[in-house]
């Protein structure tokens, strides 16, 4: 009852709780109900907090201290109230007490900083503040020498030389110990300007010193041999982050030849290859890593992920089911709700198999529907167990469930499939018949025979599978579980949907409701509504795009396309149409880009503002072609002239600005939109030089070209075991033997 009222008004709920408390005896609660009672008290306090009655909440909390069992929650609640009441000194003391219990909790440090007035959301601090923070953390480090958080947090706000000293101190012991996650830990630092260079100088120094003397610079204590390997590991990841893939691969290979038995090295190499664009080699390497520890589920999942990215779907599924229960493997994979269908669906989409892709995306959507339904189990359970605070949080979670990124991706994928279906519908049954009649009668007969055989085979398989399943189920449980055999394994029925746009709209509505701040949502909305001829809805999408990010090439494209379409539509005839027209006329001046300008001019001014950016130029070129189709060569030239400035950072080799995925997108534009095959192949050749590892551009180092690379991965061992000569007189060492010099992994 308290919960229901809570939805309407927290204060009402408090009243009810107090009334309830009034009816209890003093020696309540009995031993076995202490937890529930304490939960209720904490809940009441949190309600008071929400109402803003902070003083009262604090008072309540202190009064009921003896009855509250969850001591940690008590302290955390107290400290949050103290901070809100601005009683900072007391709060600071309490935070220190909390830190004593858990010196690695980042939130306590944050709280402490707030109490000292030294907290900033974006991490921007003046140099004076940095001094004070530094002093604070120095003292904290002294107090909690075993805490890694106290050492890591200063790295975020320190700058320049101090930063270098601190990071040096931080990294060295972790390299000696051999912490594989060191790079992920340092990764956020790369986003802060200047720190990446400092890090580079530092770790190269470490590597150099270890190679020459076996010690860290400035020390005489010899490091164990594994330290060099972990340092090389760190260096490789560093270069990978800075997009210098050649150097990264060289370093990781060095590490691998130093100690070939460490699985993390292979995983990282696989990741570097993926970034560089060679997905097949990445998948092969991930598989090699997986084989080194067959009991590791994480590595198995990573391997499946890489295989799906490389579009090796059936192999991926076979690998994934290694960790499912024997028997009903496929269903088990689905039941685990691991969302692998998302990656699988995207892979099918890339390969153009829309039916299967749709099936996978809809499976993800079903997962989310299941999660929403599952909440009903908790309503009665939570009330019984009185875990009120967690219950309220769960309800909030369910409200936002569909804004989760996996769901967004799946919905976006499904919408894209439907859009594709709309644009190029699959052959309907009647069309197929027409084609058939054009064939010679003998060919027709053969085709029909083939079809009949295929159908019979499929039927037999389905029957035998059914028998198998029911047999195993009968033997297992004695009851008959008739598990529905999937009637449409390849999603063909999904392809035959009558109105793909209507289906797409279903998902679109969910996306719009839960992810209104995502560019993707509005872009998809634009695409769907343009096709449906819903002008105002499309316009709404354009307005949202402009609101979110007007400078984005995507928004620019949609804007121009929309007004181009509108201007080419016939004059409004019906009243409804005239209404639409007038709305558009009224809104058009509000869009600053089009103020007083024609579309072509708007296009050109956009170009002038973003002359150096590849993706912006491509958008302009596309639109130029759309507005004035006879200017195709100009459009192509616009793209080809894009500068690929080498960004040269002091001391480091220059890194190009272009990103691999952007270049792939440009290539597709050249081929499919501007339809200029020669320009496309020129672009491909140019990119092959920039991205030598990319399979898409067939760069010279990618596995498309150099098979030798893949051969190194395949084990060549074909020799017999060295048998004891007395047992087996023939020399058993036959086959290929290689000397020490040629050994390479």
């Amino acid at each position, binding site marked *: 009852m308290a919960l229901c009222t809570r939805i309407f008004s927290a204060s009402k709920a408090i009243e009810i709780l107090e009334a309830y408390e009034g009816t209890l005896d003093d020696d309540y609660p009995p031993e076995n109900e202490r937890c529930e009672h304490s939960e209720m008290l904490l809940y009441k306090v949190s309600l008071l907090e929400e109402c803003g009655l902070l003083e009262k909440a604090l008072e309540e909390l202190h009064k009921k201290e003896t009855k509250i069992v969850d001591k940690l929650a008590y302290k955390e609640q107290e400290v949050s109230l103290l901070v809100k009441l601005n009683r900072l000194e007391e709060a600071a003391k309490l935070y220190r007490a909390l830190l004593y219990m858990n010196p690695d909790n980042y939130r306590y440090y944050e709280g402490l900083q707030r109490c000292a007035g030294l907290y900033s959301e974006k991490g921007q601090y003046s140099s004076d503040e940095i001094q004070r923070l530094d002093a604070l953390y120095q003292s904290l480090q002294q107090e909690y020498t075993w805490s890694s958080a106290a050492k890591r947090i200063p790295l975020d706000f320190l700058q320049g030389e101090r930063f270098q000293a601190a990071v040096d101190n931080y990294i060295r012991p972790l390299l000696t110990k051999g912490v594989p996650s060191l790079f992920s830990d340092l990764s956020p630092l790369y986003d802060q300007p200047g720190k990446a260079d400092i890090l580079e100088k530092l770790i190269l120094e470490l590597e150099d010193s270890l190679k020459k003397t076996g010690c860290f610079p400035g020390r005489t204590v010899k490091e164990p041999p594994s330290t060099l390997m972990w340092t090389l590991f760190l260096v490789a990841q560093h270069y990978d982050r800075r997009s210098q893939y050649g150097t990264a691969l060289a370093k990781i290979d060095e590490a691998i030849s130093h100690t070939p038995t460490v699985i993390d090295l292979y995983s990282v190499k696989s990741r570097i290859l993926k970034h560089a664009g060679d997905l097949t080699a990445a998948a092969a390497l991930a598989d090699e890593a997986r084989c080194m520890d067959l009991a590791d589920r994480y590595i198995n999942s990573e391997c499946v992920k890489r295989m799906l990215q490389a579009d090796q779907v059936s192999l991926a599924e076979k690998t994934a089911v290694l960790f499912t229960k024997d028997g009903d493997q496929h269903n088990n994979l689905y039941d685990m709700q691991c969302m692998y269908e998302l990656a699988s669906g995207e892979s099918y989409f890339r390969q153009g198999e829309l039916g299967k892709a749709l099936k996978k995306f809809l499976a993800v959507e079903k997962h989310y529907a299941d999660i929403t339904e599952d909440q009903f189990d908790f309503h009665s359970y939570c009330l019984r167990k009185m875990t009120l605070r967690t219950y309220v949080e769960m309800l909030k979670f369910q409200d936002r469930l569909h804004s989760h990124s996996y769901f967004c991706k799946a919905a976006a994928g499904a919408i894209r499939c439907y859009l594709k279906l709309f644009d190029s519908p699959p052959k309907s049954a009647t069309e197929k018949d027409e084609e058939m009649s054009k064939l010679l009668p003998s060919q027709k007969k053969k085709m029909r025979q083939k079809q009949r055989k295929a159908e019979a085979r499929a039927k037999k398989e389905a029957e035998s599978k059914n028998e198998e399943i029911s047999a195993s189920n009968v033997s297992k449980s004695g009851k008959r579980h008739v598990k529905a055999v999937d009637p449409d394994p390849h999603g063909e029925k999904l392809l035959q949907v009558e109105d793909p746009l209507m289906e797409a709209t279903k998902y679109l509505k969910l996306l719009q409701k839960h992810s209104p701040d995502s560019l993707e949502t509005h872009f998809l909305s634009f695409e769907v509504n343009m096709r449906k001829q819903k002008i105002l809805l499309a316009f709404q999408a354009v307005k949202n795009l402009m609101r979110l990010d007007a400078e984005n090439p995507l928004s620019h494209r949609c804007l121009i396309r929309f007004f181009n379409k509108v201007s080419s539509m016939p004059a409004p005839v019906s009243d409804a149409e005239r209404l639409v027209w007038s709305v558009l006329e009224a809104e058009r001046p509000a869009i600053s880009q089009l103020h007083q300008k024609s579309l072509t001019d708007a296009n050109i001014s956009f170009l002038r503002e973003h002359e150096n950016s590849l993706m912006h130029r491509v958008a302009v070129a596309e639109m130029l072609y759309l507005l004035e189709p006879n200017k195709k060569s100009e459009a192509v030239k616009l793209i080809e002239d894009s500068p690929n400035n080498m960004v040269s950072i002091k001391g480091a080799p220059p890194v190009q600005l272009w990103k691999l995925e952007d270049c792939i997108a440009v290539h597709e534009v050249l081929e499919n939109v501007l339809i200029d095959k020669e320009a496309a192949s020129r672009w491909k050749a140019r990119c092959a030089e920039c991205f030598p590892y990319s399979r898409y551009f067939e760069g010279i180092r990618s596995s498309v070209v150099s098979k030798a690379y893949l051969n190194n991965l395949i084990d060549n061992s074909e020799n017999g075991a060295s048998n004891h000569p007395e047992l087996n007189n023939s020399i058993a060492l036959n086959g290929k*033997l290689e000397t020490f010099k040629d050994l390479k992994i």
Partner: protein
Amino acid sequence: MKQLSTSLEGVRDKNIMQLKKLNIALFPVRYNDKYYADALASARLEAVLVIDDEKLKKRFTEAYYSDICVGAIACRLEKKDGAVRVYIMTLGVLAPYRGLGIGTMLLNHVLDLCSTQNISEIYLHVQTNNEEAINFYKKFGFEITETIKNYYTNITPPDCYVLTKYLAQAQPKK
């Protein structure tokens, strides 16, 4: 130098690949898949080296240095004239990790096991030019008992020594 923890583990089927990687890096001889399959079959019979008349049991152990697999030893039991011998098939440590006592640990492990069973001798083959290995084994009391010409086919020199260590009997032979 800082001493990091070292430990020994028997080979399991889940990490047989690590053993393969080690052997590829350490030895000029490539072993085929049957070798590793046998390794697995025997690894499950771990714990105690029970002497069974007709069967030959093998034993594989890997050495870990700070949780990185850096070395391994593989040996098997053989019967000869009623006595039981141990033959070391491979013993090796990755190059950067030598000189840290890991090889010693592996060999001592096997020697300890031998002393608790009725093992009369333990022996192995070494390429004639492998000075380091020969010196290593001599430290443990191994002696060169034989030289076999053209034992290896594709590496030079193709000759090898047989190094043997005779063990005092724990119990009198029956």
